[in-house]
């Protein structure tokens, strides 16, 4: 201020005030960027003129690490991609490796995997609605949805001993069978959960502030969304019924009955609606899986070549001890030479694994197609020309996790 003389100030007032664009660096430690995303916003008043995202603060070189590990050892790395729904990533990874080796999990394992990946979807969507509503200004939803998320995480702990970094599915099946108590308490959850979803909806669905902050914001048309490569609820919010569970069914999805909810306008509100409906469908899938769960083994018969045997068998059986020894020292048997692209419907969108094998026990190249990376790239398209406040709503609606985006 001191540089401006009184005369200049008078001059300014007479000729009209001079304006210039303001550059605002948002993040990487901003609470509503859901991790370490940095946006550089060029503002004209409150309108965003240009938005440049910067990612990579959480880059750990997962793809390079996978090249130096055996197929067995690379599984825990997939936990650290989308760390709030690690179960779904595990399922995606083991499915890709199974397709490469040409083995198939037994039906019971398939049902269990479907249950856990739908539980992961629920916990991911619960975290999303919590943080999204918190960003927009509805704090109460956060408290309610974390109550149910805790319930799910406790069930995960019951199942495999870990709440977040689960590493539960194995190549050729799952690590251990589910107990009756687990199924009972999960069934209790599915009975109760639809009422809880209604509770969240009463909090925000008719809320005038919520509607004003979400309706007509971040609109993207169906054609444009496909061209940008968007997947998951973000694409379905624009009215495209693309869902990997229906288009290329895996695990137990062909045997259960569910619908794919789609939106119409492709704005923040429609994507919110799609995710809320998806939670109901996930609940339905879990319920059906529990009811139809067949008896039988949870590991494929040829699985010992790929996966460590259970500890009690190692201690009591010679054959298992040999398998364990060979797997630890030499790694799993060599994969057939070839390449495979396998995708699952992760809570955020399509999570793809492209594995190139050169006929050894390690992947020659493992590429992760993460939905968050693609969704983060669409942010400038959604934000430019809108208000700063809508940037927050847009970050929330594309539902990114930076662990998966930066890999």
């Amino acid at each position, binding site marked *: 201020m001191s540089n401006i003389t009184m005369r200049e100030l008078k001059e300014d007032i007479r000729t009209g005030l001079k304006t210039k664009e303001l550059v605002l660096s948002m993040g990487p430690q901003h609470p509503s960027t859901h991790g370490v995303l940095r946006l550089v916003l060029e503002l004209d008043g409150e309108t965003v003129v240009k938005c440049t995202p910067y990612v990579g603060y959480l*880059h750990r070189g997962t793809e390079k690490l996978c090249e*130096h590990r055996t197929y067995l050892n690379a599984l825990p790395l997939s936990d650290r991609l989308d760390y709030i729904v690690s179960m779904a990533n595990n399922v995606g990874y083991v499915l890709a490796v199974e397709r490469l080796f040409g083995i198939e999990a037994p039906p019971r394992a398939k049902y269990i995997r479907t249950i856990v990946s739908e539980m992961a979807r629920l916990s991911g969507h619960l975290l999303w609605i919590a943080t999204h509503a918190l960003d927009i200004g509805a704090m109460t939803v956060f408290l309610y949805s974390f109550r149910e998320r805790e319930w799910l995480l406790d069930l995960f702990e019951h199942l495999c001993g870990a709440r977040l970094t689960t590493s539960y599915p194995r190549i050729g099946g799952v690590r251990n069978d589910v107990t009756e108590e687990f199924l009972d308490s999960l069934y209790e959850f599915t009975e109760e959960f639809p009422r809880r979803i209604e509770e969240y909806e009463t909090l925000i669905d008719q809320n005038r502030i919520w509607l004003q902050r979400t309706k007509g914001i971040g609109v993207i048309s169906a054609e444009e969304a496909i*061209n940008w490569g968007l997947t998951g609820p973000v694409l379905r919010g624009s009215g495209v019924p693309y869902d990997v569970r229906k288009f290329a069914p895996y695990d137990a999805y062909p045997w259960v009955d569910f619908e794919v909810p789609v939106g119409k306008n492709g704005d923040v509100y429609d994507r919110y609606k799609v995710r809320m409906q998806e939670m109901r469908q996930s609940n339905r899938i879990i319920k059906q899986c529990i009811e139809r769960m067949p008896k039988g083994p949870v590991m494929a018969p040829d699985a010992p070549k790929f996966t460590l045997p259970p500890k009690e068998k190692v201690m009591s059986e010679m054959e298992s001890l040999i398998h364990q020894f060979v797997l630890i020292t030499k790694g799993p048997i060599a994969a057939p030479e070839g*390449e495979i*692209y396998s995708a699952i419907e992760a809570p955020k969108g399509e999570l793809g694994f492209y594995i190139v094998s050169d006929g050894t026990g390690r992947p020659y190249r493992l590429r992760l197609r993460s939905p968050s990376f693609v969704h983060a790239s669409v942010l400038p398209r959604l934000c430019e020309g809108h208000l700063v406040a809508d940037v927050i709503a847009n970050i929330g609606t594309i539902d990114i996790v930076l662990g998966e985006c930066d890999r």
Partner: protein
Amino acid sequence: MEPLQIAERLRERFPEDVREIKEFRDQVSVIVKRDHILDLLSFLKEEPDIQMDFLKDLTAVDWLGKKVPRFEVVYHLYSIKFRHLLRLKAEVPEEDPVIDSVMPIYIGANWHERECFDMFGIQFRGHPDLRRILLPEDWEGYPLRKDYPLEGYKGEKDWSGFREVLQIAKRNKKFDWYGAQER
């Protein structure tokens, strides 16, 4: 349409460019030359009974010492209407790692191409904003190339930002905490 049929159609239309068709576990990959990649992709996108409107993924593979054109840029194309998947692999030699950007056809290729440049050093001709994306701008080398060591370059060739942190740590170690308190 079956993916193999699409590959044959592509070979009929562009006999010069398609080099090889491979099938593994019901997935078809077509190895093509890099020169007319834009024409190939727009043919696959525009043809009414193929309509590959969705670019699932774009990445590269380094075949150091295994194949002669060292790099392959891999496109995974999908049709949401007809539900078929095709993999296109364009060969890119080591001495001139340049290929046309496919952003005019699939705008979503933007960040994938930037990542490809970041990790493999492949230049995409016509890309509006080809910068490093996951790594810092002053990073040296391309980490996903096979001749890049797993733990990175050590010592003087390490990233300048990391060396700075190490120097600060060293300086702070020497700092006389007890003396400072007395003062």
